[in-house]
């Protein structure tokens, strides 16, 4: 294309996509934090930020970013040096990888992997590893408790999540994200697989560390959990990953269940963003309504309710598919 030889063309393509995803995640964190403040404000009859960037406070998060940039990067003497220093990069890297297989529009996909769905599940497991490293490396008791919770919780919600994604794969007849979107050209999967959507959405709230499943950092119990010892830019990376994870899981949910970029009149990427941020908003709405569950209750809920439900959903899907 454009007279550039093939191997170089794919390199340029990869670099452009990588830059795009990283910039998107950075901008997303700014927008999502602002949105969270505004949504929580409205729910609580407040107005949220409004001073920096009047009248809607659009520059508040940008100001916060600058504040974090100039803050001191503190590392305590007793921390596990390399584990502590590397930990913030890993959740962010995982989220960036996750966006590799998310289609933005027709033929607008960074990497058209034929097993994109599995890829998503695989890379998200890194995120938990990063939180665990942060909790362990901090050598702080509260952080260690947060790390313990992370490891325990992950096993219980990843399984139902994978099964819910599998149900979508079965319905679409493919694990390719593009195929899944194309299979929803008539009816979005939320109508065909409502149970799978619920399971995925609940599990994704746990994945993104959102209330009611935000016990990894549960500020009223563990003060700040795994990232308690971090400051400045390293802490900002956790924040970036947290909101990236929120928008990432929402984007996957939008692609798998709401028809992805498909929609009338507007171009694909616009529809994709609308659907994604609709789900982001729902997650925020849920966060500012519900109390936090206890860790053992999440494990109970995951193993005794979500997992059997997901298995039943897969069984029913299989039978229906076999009969059709």
């Amino acid at each position, binding site marked *: 294309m454009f007279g550039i030889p093939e191997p170089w063309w794919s390199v340029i393509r990869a670099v452009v996509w990588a830059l795009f995803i990283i910039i998107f995640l950075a901008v997303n964190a700014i927008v999502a934090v602002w949105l969270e403040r505004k949504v*929580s404000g409205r729910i609580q009859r407040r107005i949220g930020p409004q001073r920096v960037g009047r009248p809607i406070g659009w520059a508040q998060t940008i100001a916060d970013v600058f504040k974090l940039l100039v803050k001191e990067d503190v590392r305590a003497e007793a921390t596990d040096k390399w584990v502590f220093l590397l930990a913030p990069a890993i959740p962010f890297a995982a989220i960036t990888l996750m966006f590799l297989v998310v289609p933005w529009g027709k033929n607008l996909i960074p990497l058209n992997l034929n097993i994109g769905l599995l890829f998503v599940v695989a890379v998200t497991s890194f995120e938990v590893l990063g939180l665990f490293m942060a909790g362990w490396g901090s050598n702080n*008791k509260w952080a260690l408790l947060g790390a313990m919770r992370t490891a325990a919780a992950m096993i219980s919600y990843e399984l139902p999540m994978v099964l819910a994604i599998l149900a979508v794969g079965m319905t679409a007849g493919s694990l390719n994200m593009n195929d899944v979107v194309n299979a929803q050209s008539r009816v979005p999967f939320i109508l065909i697989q409502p149970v799978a959507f619920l399971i995925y959405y609940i599990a994704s709230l746990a994945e993104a560390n959102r209330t009611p499943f935000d016990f990894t950092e549960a500020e009223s119990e563990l003060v700040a959990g795994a990232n308690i010892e971090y400051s400045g830019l390293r802490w900002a990376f956790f924040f970036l990953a947290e909101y990236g994870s929120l928008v990432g899981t929402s984007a996957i949910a939008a692609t798998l269940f709401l028809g992805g970029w498909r929609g009338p009149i507007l171009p694909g990427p616009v529809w994709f963003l609308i659907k994604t941020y609709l789900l982001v908003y729902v997650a925020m709405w849920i966060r500012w309504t519900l109390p936090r569950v206890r860790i053992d209750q999440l494990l109970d809920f995951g193993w005794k309710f979500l997992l059997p439900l997901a298995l039943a959903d897969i069984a029913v899907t299989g039978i229906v598919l076999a009969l059709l």
Partner: protein
Amino acid sequence: MPDNLRSTPITMPDEGARELVVNMGPQHPSTHGVLRVKITLNGETLEAADPDIGYLHRCFEKIAEGITYPQVMPYTDRTDYVAAITDEWAYALAAERLLGVEVPERAEYIRVIMGEVQRLLSHLIWFGSFAMDMGAVTPFLYAWRERETGYDFMETVTGTRQLYNFLRIGGVRNDIDDDGWQALDRFLKAMDQALIEYDTLFTKNPIFEVRAKGIGPLSAEEAIAFGASGPVLRGSGVARDLRRDEPYSVYDRLDFAVPVGSSGDAYDRYLVRMLEMEQSLRIIRQAIKQIPPGDIQGKVPKAMKPTGEAYARVEAPKGEVACYLVGNGTVNPYRMHWRSPCFTHLQLLPHWAPGNLVADMVVLIGTIDIILGEVDR
């Protein structure tokens, strides 16, 4: 290897122990002030909790020995700073008994109204922070919203928002004027709506139910043995309310129910407090109808130099607040002792803690509605 030989010390009480000892507080978001609880954890399960108090100690009882009787009143505000009126009330009752002062009827009704509004305000703060301990931030701000109308009323009547110094020995400082009555009306209306909203938003929330049910159970016998009072005692099924059982002021002329729990867990104590808020609204409405005209300040001796001793207790939002006063014929009290319910309830923490999770710890602290100003005095 360079890194391998480095140790990663995790502080432990002693070598070979399984437990992790963690300081919860004095700087912790959920200890409602400067409470430090030393908790021993096995995994995430609590094995012991050891409350450490005194971070807010101000020698209140000793200070009272050096100042005159009227001057003690502002200090009583600062024990339970979210329910100042009821604390003033306990002191005023004790001082009136010591001095033999009669309180005019209108003043008594004003005290009842202010005291019950104060109970509502205190329970609102407790409701909000209890919800926030469980991770629900929004009920906190809704509670703050209603509290604002309540504090508008308090400010209109007393001139300050939190530490009123409103009660006087033998009466109250001033009457409630038209602005005050209107503000009270607005507050009552807001509370009627708010209680319904709280129930829909939080009381019936299944996550809240599973978080609170079965946490911190307290049988009736245990509650009595621990010296519990107020909602903690009533949540365990003991129907004891000083306003009904040992009526002071004009409570014997007012009709209200005493809500009582059954299993004595955090959920029951929650419900008892929520139902108490309804009863408080009822009491205020009756008091508004019954309030007679007249003086608001009884006859007080010019120089207060009583001898003897007096003990008075009132039903404060958190339990029984009591004041023991001894006078020796000088202008200063000879001795004063303050009974604060939170101090008594704090000993329930080590009793409850073993076997619960860290997440339950904040629920347990929240369920006794702790105010550190009262614990430390």
